[in-house]
């Protein structure tokens, strides 16, 4: 059977599995449709949360970026896990005690204001839509490779499938489907990692293999990698950071507090049976997330070594990397490179016309490397590899069997679809229920509400798909912006709602608007108005990139959050205190006893 056929078979089988489980679970209980996870064991709920959380950015994009960035890529690892500690301690138990279904509902009640709730809806939509753009980028990469089409066609196919999937209804709400998706994605992620770790280090556990010796030598894998990449002019793998320490710091903060502010994640903790369970389920979710996240650095480092070894034979033999014979001939390149060239995400340009592939850092400041390259007749690096392809190409680079390659495709799609569907449902319920039904059109029929939700979904997919064609960065980078938006708007508002009982509606609204506002302004100045290419307005700020303390737009959520806190605090000092009953409400939320089942009629 051809690779193509195997891939279709595995992807098809996993889809059949999800749909089968959805039908089976639906027959069992209709309330499951709305209340994700109540009455489900906390361990299973943790798995489902893991699937909901780990998106195309985690699965497809992250290891590739780490592979490229080396040590500095750790900001994604720490940023996307550390937030769960904050979630477990600062938000989840209290939001559960509060007993509402969605973030805008909490904001509306706590700040006794429909205005605050509307602003929260806007923040939620801004973060969610940006997040979906990142998913579309990832889905586009996956489909383009497995259908053998261009990246743009891949995005269109992805849009159609995500739409059908999300409109299917409460697919996302059914915890058991997500448990299945978690199993598919984690198996798909770890199996190639185990194979490759065995192959490179003889240790089947990737987390240990990464700290082990390169097979057949007494040199550690990491020092071998350090040596190879520095000889070719790249930064030392275990130390290099693309970013300054300040940037890495605020970037990590932004991802962490963004995690604790993303609506589709928080929502899962609203509906667990007890306050106690809210704390525990955050822990279980992180266990299942950490399985992938601690494997990712091994995948990253090993893929990097494998990639270098593919194009330069001297990497394995330990000979001279600059010898003519070391670089492989383009005509003899492995099949996987040919397959990825079709997508346009891997490119070769024979700059010195010798028919061989030279891959090194031609922009290095190391004069020694440049001199060697010149002496060898190299005229610049000839291979460009898009970071987003590393995880998907990884099993091909390592010559793993076809079924593993197909499995990885299925895993990537499971990750992208489960998250995109979750986000789309969050958007559609925010618009149709929190905005239309609760505020603008109270007499909207249930049918009308559902229709409005579907229209909102379709519209978000089209917007996200369009922007996914011209993404503002790699999947993980775009998703990082979504976290920045959540970090600067929703997280501070929820925190102050729980920990500062004097926080009033004026402060909360002003804080959210200013926090989200400065973050969007900074991001759009760099990446274009609503990410549309050509509308950047850096000129207004002196034309220099990263003009505020050298901080990257992707990391700016932290600054936005600080602005939010400060503005909210100052405004609340000069405006009236919240009413007495709200202050009592906050005191009551802080104590676990008396947590009731979640109320509030919330459809889909």
């Amino acid at each position, binding site marked *: 059977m051809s690779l193509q056929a195997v891939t279709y078979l595995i992807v098809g089988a996993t889809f059949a599995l999800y749909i089968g489980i959805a039908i089976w679970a639906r027959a069992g209980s209709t309330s499951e449709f709305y209340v994700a996870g109540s009455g489900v064991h906390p361990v299973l709920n943790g798995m489902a949360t893991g699937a909901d959380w780990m998106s195309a950015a985690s699965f497809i994009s992250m290891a590739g970026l780490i592979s490229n960035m080396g040590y500095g890529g750790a900001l994604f690892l*720490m940023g996307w896990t*550390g937030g*769960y*500690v904050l979630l477990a301690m600062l938000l989840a138990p209290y939001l559960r005690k509060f007993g509402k279904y969605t973030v805008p509902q909490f904001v509306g009640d706590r700040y006794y204001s429909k205005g605050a709730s509307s602003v929260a809806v806007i923040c939620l939509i801004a973060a969610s839509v940006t997040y979906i753009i990142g998913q579309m980028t990832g889905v586009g990469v996956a489909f383009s490779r497995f259908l053998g089409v261009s990246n743009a066609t891949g995005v269109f196919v992805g849009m159609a499938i995500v739409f059908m999937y999300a409109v299917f209804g409460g697919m996302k709400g059914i915890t058991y489907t997500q448990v299945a998706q978690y199993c598919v994605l984690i198996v798909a992620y770890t199996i190639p990692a185990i194979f490759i770790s065995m192959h490179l280090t003889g240790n089947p556990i990737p987390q240990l293999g990464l700290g082990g010796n390169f097979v057949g030598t007494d040199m550690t894998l*990491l020092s071998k990698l350090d040596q190879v990449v520095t000889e070719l002019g790249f930064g030392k793998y275990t*130390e290099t950071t693309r970013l300054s320490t300040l940037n*890495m710091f605020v970037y990590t903060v932004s991802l962490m507090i963004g995690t604790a502010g993303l609506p589709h994640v928080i929502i899962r903790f609203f509906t667990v049976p007890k306050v106690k369970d809210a704390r525990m389920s*955050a822990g279980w979710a992180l266990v299942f997330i950490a399985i992938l996240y601690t494997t990712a650095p091994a995948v990253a480092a090993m893929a990097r070594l494998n990639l270098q070894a593919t194009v330069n034979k001297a990497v394995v033999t330990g000979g001279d990397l600059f010898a003519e014979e070391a670089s492989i001939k383009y005509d003899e390149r492995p099949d996987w490179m040919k397959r990825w060239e079709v997508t346009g995400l891997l490119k070769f340009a024979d700059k010195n016309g010798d028919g061989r592939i030279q891959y090194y850092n031609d922009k290095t400041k190391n004069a020694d490397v440049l001199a060697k390259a010149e002496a060898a007749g190299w005229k610049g690096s000839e291979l460009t590899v898009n970071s987003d392809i590393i995880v998907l190409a990884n099993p091909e680079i390592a010559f793993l069997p076809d079924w593993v390659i197909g499995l990885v495709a299925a895993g990537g799609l499971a990750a992208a679809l489960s998250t995109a569907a979750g986000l789309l449902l969050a958007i559609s319920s925010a618009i149709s229920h929190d905005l239309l039904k609760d505020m603008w059109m109270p007499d909207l029929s249930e049918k009308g509400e559902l229709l409005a939700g579907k229209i909102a979904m379709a519209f978000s997919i089209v917007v996200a798909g369009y922007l996914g064609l011209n993404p503002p960065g790699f999947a993980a980078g775009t998703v990082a912006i979504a976290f920045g938006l959540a970090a600067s708007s929703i997280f501070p508002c929820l925190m102050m709602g729980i920990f500062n009982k004097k926080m009033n509606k004026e402060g909360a609204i002003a804080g959210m608007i200013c926090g989200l506002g400065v973050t969007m302004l900074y991001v759009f100045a760099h990446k274009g108005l609503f990410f549309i290419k050509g509308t950047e307005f850096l000129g207004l700020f002196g034309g220099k990139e990263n003009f505020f303390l050298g901080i990257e737009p992707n990391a700016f959520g932290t600054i936005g959050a600080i602005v939010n806190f400060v503005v909210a605090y100052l405004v609340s000092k000069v405006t009236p205190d919240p009413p007495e009953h709200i202050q009592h409400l906050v005191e009551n939320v802080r104590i*676990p006893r008396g*947590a009731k089942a979640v109320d509030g009629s919330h459809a889909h």
Partner: protein
Amino acid sequence: MDKSGKAYWKAVLTLVAQVLVVWFVVSYGAGILFAPELNSIKLGGYPLGFWFAQQGSMYIFVALIFIYAKLMGNIDRKFDVHEE
């Protein structure tokens, strides 16, 4: 809030602060700020700073949540505010 309510909230905030200190030290401290210094120490084949950044901090985060959940349970029972 009555007296025991205040004492309960104080105990909660103290625990949260303690957990956050560890959370900060392993990730931002060992993983970022002091990683270059720690890299001269080796943990197996890992430079220690690199290990904290790409492995260790995540293991510690998981442990922290379970420790927090356990200790919060104790505090809830001590102040008699736990769920029946």
